[in-house]
């Protein structure tokens, strides 16, 4: 290596130290690269979805990453084998037609909720998903300040709000109630055995699908749960290049009249996703895409 190269390398090394973050761009090809060190992934990255829930601060022993990971997945496998269908199909259904609800025509546009933990009050969440507020004439209990909640909304404001269809409304109520039961149960299980938000979402989706199938609801049956649609509007198998819907509601002829999508936590449906759903199912804006939100309470996330 001649002196000009050495000088060049020295200059670059100097620049590398004075320009943090530009390491790779300034490293000349002839300098030996440092052997990469094995390291755990950077969990603090803002875009990273946490794989597992951090242990509580008061925890005496901090579990290792692998231990926690395998514990959660063992639990997932164990739960998958449970006979959820029998539990959900029992005559002690959670559905109560007299349960108070926010009317569909509420002034702030198409968002409803059902109560948490069987209390007599309903909650209403604003369009921005802000704090629940009591409706006129109703008092929110402070017995459980962080309840398990379920609420629904239309995917696109001002679009698809043909909630005049009583079949859609009735089904939305029933599905909301089923989701409330599922959410409550999964949250209770998660309280005794903490799981990550991601796994919580998987359990809620799975249990909700099982519960809806077991109910064999009109317009949904067993076929309307977890259906995949390709770009031609054809129903195809899971795993192919297609949009997977949670619930599809149809009329007697089989025409789609509503699509329901379950979201846990603060997950929202992007307009582009809603549009893709419409393209793949070939439904127009007159068919509502209704998002059913399941929230397990901020303290649990």
């Amino acid at each position: 290596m001649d002196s000009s190269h050495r000088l060049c390398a020295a200059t670059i090394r100097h620049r590398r130290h004075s320009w943090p973050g530009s390491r790779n761009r300034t490293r000349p090809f002839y300098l030996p690269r440092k052997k990469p060190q094995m390291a755990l992934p950077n969990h603090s990255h803002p875009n990273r979805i946490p794989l597992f829930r951090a242990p509580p601060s008061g925890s005496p022993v901090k579990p290792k990453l692998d231990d926690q990971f395998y514990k959660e997945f063992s639990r997932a496998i164990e739960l998958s084998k449970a006979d959820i269908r029998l539990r959900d199909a029992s005559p002690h259904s959670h559905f109560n037609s007299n349960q108070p609800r926010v009317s569909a025509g509420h002034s702030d546009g198409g968002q409803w909720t059902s109560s948490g933990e069987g209390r007599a009050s309903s909650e209403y969440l604003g369009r921005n998903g802000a704090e629940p507020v009591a409706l006129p004439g109703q008092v929110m209990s402070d017995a459980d300040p962080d309840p398990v909640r379920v609420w629904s909304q239309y995917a696109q404001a001002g679009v698809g709000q043909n909630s005049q269809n009583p079949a859609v409304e009735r089904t939305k109520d029933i599905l909301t109630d089923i989701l409330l039961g599922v959410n409550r149960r999964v949250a209770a299980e998660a309280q005794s055995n903490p799981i990550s938000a991601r796994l919580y979402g998987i359990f809620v989706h799975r249990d909700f699908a099982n519960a809806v199938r077991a109910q064999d609801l009109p317009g949904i049956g067993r076929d309307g749960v977890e259906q995949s649609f390709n770009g031609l509007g054809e129903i195809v198998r899971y795993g192919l290049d297609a949009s997977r819907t949670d619930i599809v509601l149809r009329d007697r002829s089989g025409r789609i009249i509503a699509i329901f999508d379950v979201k846990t936590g603060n997950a929202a449906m992007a307009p582009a996703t809603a549009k893709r759903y419409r393209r793949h199912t070939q439904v127009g804006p007159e068919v509502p895409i209704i998002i059913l939100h399941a929230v397990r309470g901020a303290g649990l996330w």
Partner: protein
Amino acid sequence: MVRRSRRIFGQIAKEMSAFILCKDMLVIPPTENIVRGFLIEGTSEKDRIYLWKVVCPLHRPMRDVYLNYSDRISEEGGDIFVDSKDFRKSAALIGSIIGKHVDELSLIRTAKDFLRYIGPMLGNESFVVQLDLAMIHCRMRNISKCREILTKLRVRFDSWTEQMNQGSRQKHSDPFGDQLELVERAFASGSEDLIVLMNEWESKNVELLELGPTWVPPVV
């Protein structure tokens, strides 16, 4: 999933001569215009599957069998779990479920049978169903009915496309629109041309789904 389906269905096909294993689908021979059989769909839950009773016309281009006219079946509405370590046991379970549906499927062979089968869906205005319906009518030489359906479908499809493209800077090309256009073009040059096109697509689908051993080629 394909391997699991093949192992389970292969076991059934070995024991029940009424079926032929084609790719990963258990098919009831002979296949004419419509493929009938059974299919396993995986789920996000380990070892749980959906079992489909498949009825699918072959007259349109496809990448995989589509299930718009098929039903999920199970034992008294329960979930189906397969034992990944014991395929014989899984095959016995699935064999007992599909056995009840074979007679019904055996009756759907031709376009006419298919039309009768989808009778309750005739009010279904989804584009795929309407296009299939038009093509089925063409095959049955109900030319005016085919024309009527295609004309209405075009109007509705254009209106839907316009709604979908609202607010988008670039026009979205829809694969269904491309298929519709091909069908319309063939039909415009004569119903026989559309039937030839349908036969051509059918042959390709037979190849794609490996239905050769069950196929009865159409009489031209």
